[in-house]
């Protein structure tokens, strides 16, 4: 570890040595700021993504179980009981989903509708209500796509309900849907007291939805189709992942540029220590060893800069989060300030790449220095 020993001495001495000192300081600060910027950006992104994810997980069932090859489950209770018995499942609720005509007066419009146990009254999405001019408290008629037999032949099933509320429009990742109590939905779609078109399953650990799906398949067999929350929100999940990658790459460019300063540090050091390099080679150091000394010196500046940047960035992110220093319009984002979440994995990736880059950059001038003929530098005092 002679290279580290010498590099350390050179860097400590550079406090007195203006040439090397200034360049090393510039490289250190540049890299520290670049890394800090990267850590803060990633923390902001992770904060937003955590927020979006938790909202998704609250809104979307972690697993959606639908019948394969038929319209609805009829032997409901058995399916429900079996689902509830699958390990990792926290809650199971039957739903009935279908399409209806919503009509008021002479106007009618098709609507997606879903019945859930906990829903009270009829709630329309604002997007569904607006074209028909519906406001809460009015009575509408829902005409089902199913029909029942009457003495006059098949007639559509109809239900007349009072609109109890309007829901804010869906986030765009799925179609607008109205909701109504499960029993009412069962009546509309001609299902028995135990019928359901699907089950919404919530898991203890939503990040292991795939494993949960496998467990359900194992318990219920191939008669059901499973959709995980990630599949239901595929476009959004993919966008989040891509966003992370793109941001990382874009901000890492700053680190790359800042890291180039290390080439200057390493080059100035090698130029001012050409005689030492020659002495080392006379004392038995191979060109590789000499190269290592200068590369280590540059690399150490890179490590110090990276470390300082990580600490600075993490500290800034934690403070911004703790004191909510970046306010946001709450009604637009559903939160009052920008969330920062420092992900240790992100930090490790940043630090590793930055340090690697530092060594790569520093090794170029170090190699050149190590190839200089020794005697040239040794002539003269």
């Amino acid at each position, binding site marked *: 570890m*002679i290279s580290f*020993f*010498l590099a350390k*001495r*050179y860097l*400590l*001495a550079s406090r007195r040595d203006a040439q090397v000192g200034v360049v090393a300081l510039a490289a250190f600060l540049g890299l520290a700021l670049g890394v800090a910027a990267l850590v803060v950006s990633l923390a902001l992104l992770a904060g937003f993504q955590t927020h979006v994810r938790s909202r998704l997980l609250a809104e979307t069932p972690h697993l959606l179980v639908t019948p394969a090859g038929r319209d609805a489950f009829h032997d409901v209770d058995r399916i429900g009981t079996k689902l509830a018995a699958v390990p990792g499942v926290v809650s199971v609720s039957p739903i009935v989903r279908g399409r209806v005509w919503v009509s008021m007066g002479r106007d009618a419009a098709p609507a997606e509708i879903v019945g859930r146990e906990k829903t009270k009254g009829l709630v329309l999405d604002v997007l569904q209500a607006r074209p028909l001019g519906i406001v809460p408290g009015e009575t509408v008629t829902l005409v089902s796509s199913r029909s029942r037999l009457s003495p006059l032949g098949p007639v559509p099933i109809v239900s007349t309900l009072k609109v109890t509320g309007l829901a804010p429009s869906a986030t765009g990742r799925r179609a607008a849907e109205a909701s109504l109590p499960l029993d009412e939905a069962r009546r509309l779609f001609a299902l028995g007291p135990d019928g359901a078109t699907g089950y919404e399953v919530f898991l203890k650990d939503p990040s292991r939805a795939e494993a949960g799906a496998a467990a359900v398949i194992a318990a219920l067999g191939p008669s059901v189709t499973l959709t995980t929350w990630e599949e239901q929100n595929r476009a959004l999940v993919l966008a989040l992942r891509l966003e992370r990658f793109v941001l990382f790459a874009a901000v890492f460019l700053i680190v790359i540029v800042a890291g180039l300063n290390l080439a200057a540090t390493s080059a100035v050091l090698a130029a001012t220590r050409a*005689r*030492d390099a*020659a*002495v*080392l*080679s*006379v*004392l*038995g*150091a*191979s*060109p*590789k*060893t000499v190269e290592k000394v200068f590369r280590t010196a540059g690399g150490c500046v890179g490590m110090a800069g990276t470390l300082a940047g990580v600490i600075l960035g993490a500290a800034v992110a934690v403070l911004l989060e703790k004191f909510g220093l970046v306010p946001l319009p709450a009604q637009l984002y559903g939160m009052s300030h920008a969330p920062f979440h420092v992900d240790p994995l992100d930090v490790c990736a940043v630090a590793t790449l930055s340090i690697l880059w530092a060594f790569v950059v520093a090794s170029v001038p170090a190699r050149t220095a190590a190839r200089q*003929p*020794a*005697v040239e530098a*040794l*002539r*003269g*005092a």
Partner: protein
Amino acid sequence: MAPEAAPLLVAESLAKGFGSGDARVEVFRGVSLTVAGGDLLAITGPSGSGKSTLLHLFAGLETPDAGRVVLDGVDWAVLAPAPRAAVRGASVGFVFQFHHLLPELTAEENVALPLFLAGRKEEDGRREAREVLDRVGLLGRATAFPRTLSGGERQRVAIARAVVRRPRLLLCDEPTGSLDATHAARVFELLAEVAKERAGAAIVVTHDPEWARRCATIKLLGEEGLSDVI
């Protein structure tokens, strides 16, 4: 020289010059010599006659224009840079005309540097370095940095650094230039001792008549660029 002992260093009709065209300077031509283990050699000659250059050739730091240098049976010319450095570190101790200590290292660390480069543990390296510093009378200055040492002290540290790995070939470029007679004598004793220890040899560029009297002397004549071996 005992007939069965292989020569330590063989130089065959060495020639060296610098520059090209009109600026060409021929330093010397046709220098041949054989050095066996136990030999002590002095090189004298006027300034610019090529004494330092000759030592550089012996140490494999420079390549001759003609002729070859063979150390312990190995021609420097056949060695790639890395093994060349390894051989030099293990077998050659070099004292520069201008001490060339590393300013960021203490005297002790400067002396231990060849050992560190050879992969010795820091503790062992430092201990051995102190032993050698003791032999040149500088144990008390072990933790001093070169800039705080006098010219003669620097020179002695440089000598300690050259001998710390007990090289078989010691090449010294005016090692006693800035030393008084007493210290010069001690340095010569040390060089002679180290040379004897591993049946090595010392080649010393010097103007010291005492040293010149004690050993075989090569005299470089300079000017005409020719040399004469006595």
